[in-house]
C-alpha cells in the first residue's frame, strides 16, 4: 500500500473512530490506537503519538460548544488541571522507559475499566439543598447549569478526593495518549458530585490541556509522525463533528452499551498482544 492509499485508509478509519467516540462519549483515542496497532500493525508509540494529538482537536471542539452553552465549570476545570497536568508529565515520561508490551496490557486494562464506567446508567445528583462544603465555597466552585426547566444550582464537595483521582487520570492520559475522559468524569460526577453533564463538559475542557502537557514530551522523543498524525487528526476531528451533530436528540443509551461490549473484545486483544508479544 502506498502512502496515498495508506493515508486515505487511516483517515477513513479515524473518521469512524471519531464518530463513535463522540456518539458514545468514550472519545476517539480508545479506538484509534487499537486500530493503528492491531489492524495496521503500527508501533504503539507512533499510535499513541497520533492519538494524543487527535484528542486535543476533538476535545477542544467539544469543549467550545459546551463552554458557550454554560455547562462547563471553569473554576473546577482550572483547579483540577493542576492535578491532570502534573499527572500527565509523569505519565508521558514513563512512556519513554515503559516496555511496549506492557503498554499494550495497561491500555487494554484501562480500556476495560473505561468501557465499564461509560456503560453504566447515569443519574443526575441534586445537591442544591445539601450543606455547603467549606473548601468548595472558599474556592467559589459551586455553580449552576442549564436544564430544560431553567438553570439549576449544584454544590461541589470532596475536592481532595477528586484532585487525587484527576492526577491518576493525567498519568493514564500521558502514558497511553488518551483523554482519560471516563476517569475524569468519574472524579467529578461520582467523587465531587457535579451533575453528569457538567462533569462531561468540564472533562472535555480539561482534556486538551492535559494532552498539551504530554505533547511536548511526545514530540521531543519523536512519537509524533506527521505522515500518521495528519490523517488521524483530520479523520477523528471530522468524525467527531459529525457525531456531535447526530448526538442532538439521539437515544444513545443502547448504542453506548453495545459499543462497550464491542470494546471488551478490543481490550482483550490488546492485553493478549501485550502478553503473547509477537510484533
Amino acid at each position, binding site marked *: 500500500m502506498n502512502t496515498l492509499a495508506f493515508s486515505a485508509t487511516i483517515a477513513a478509519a479515524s473518521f469512524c473512530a471519531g464518530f463513535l467516540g463522540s456518539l458514545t462519549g468514550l472519545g476517539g483515542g480508545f479506538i484509534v490506537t487499537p486500530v493503528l496497532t492491531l489492524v495496521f500493525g503500527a508501533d504503539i508509540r507512533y499510535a499513541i503519538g497520533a492519538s494524543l494529538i487527535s484528542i486535543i482537536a476533538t476535545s477542544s471542539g467539544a469543549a467550545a460548544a459546551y463552554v*458557550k452553552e454554560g455547562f462547563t465549570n471553569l473554576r473546577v476545570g482550572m483547579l483540577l488541571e493542576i492535578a491532570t497536568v502534573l499527572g500527565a508529565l509523569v505519565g508521558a515520561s514513563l512512556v519513554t522507559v515503559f516496555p511496549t508490551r506492557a503498554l499494550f496490557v495497561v491500555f487494554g486494562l484501562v480500556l476495560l475499566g473505561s468501557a465499564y464506567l461509560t456503560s453504566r446508567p447515569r443519574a443526575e445528583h441534586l445537591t442544591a439543598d445539601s450543606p455547603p462544603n467549606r473548601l468548595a465555597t472558599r474556592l467559589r466552585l459551586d455553580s449552576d447549569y442549564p436544564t430544560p426547566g431553567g438553570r439549576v444550582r449544584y454544590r461541589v464537595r470532596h475536592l481532595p478526593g477528586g484532585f487525587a483521582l484527576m492526577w491518576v487520570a493525567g498519568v493514564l492520559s500521558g502514558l497511553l495518549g488518551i483523554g482519560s475522559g471516563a476517569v475524569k468524569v468519574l472524579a467529578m460526577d461520582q467523587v465531587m458530585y457535579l451533575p453528569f453533564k457538567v462533569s462531561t463538559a468540564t472533562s472535555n475542557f480539561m482534556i486538551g490541556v492535559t494532552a498539551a502537557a504530554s505533547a511536548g514530551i511526545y514530540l521531543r522523543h519523536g512519537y509524533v509522525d506527521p505522515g500518521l498524525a495528519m490523517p488521524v487528526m483530520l479523520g477523528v476531528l471530522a468524525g467527531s463533528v459529525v457525531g456531535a451533530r447526530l448526538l442532538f436528540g439521539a437515544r444513545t443509551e443502547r448504542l453506548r452499551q453495545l459499543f462497550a461490549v464491542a470494546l471488551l473484545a478490543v481490550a482483550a486483544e490488546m492485553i493478549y498482544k501485550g502478553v503473547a508479544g509477537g510484533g
Partner: protein
Amino acid sequence: MRTPWRDVKDADVQQAVGNLLRIGVALAAAVVLAGGAIYLWRHGGAVPDYRVFRGEPPDLRGLAGIVRDTLSGGGRGLIQLGLLLLVATPVARVAFTAVAFALERDRTYVLVALLVLALLLKSLAG
C-alpha cells in the same frame, strides 16, 4: 436569566474561551490539511512503514527544525507546524483565562491559571 450565583463576566469569558478554542482548532486543521496535501503530492507513491519505531528525525522534533523544514517547502514540516498550533490552542486558552480572572479580580484563580501555564510551558520548552 441571571441568578445570584452567576456572574455576567463569567458568561463573557465563556463565549470568548469557546471562540478561542474553535479558531485554534480550525486554523490548526487548515495548516495540517495544507501540509498533508504537499506531503501526499510529493511522497504519495512511496510505501510507508510504521511497524518499526525509529522516532522522528531531529528536524521534526522541535520548533526551530519544524519551521526550517516548512520554509524549505516540506509538507511534513508544515503538518508538524499545524500540530504545534493545535497544541498551542489549550495553552493559549489557559493564558487567556489567567487574564480573564485578573479582570474579574479573582486572585486565587489567576494564580491557579498561571501555575498551569507555567507547567505547560516548562513541559513544551523541555
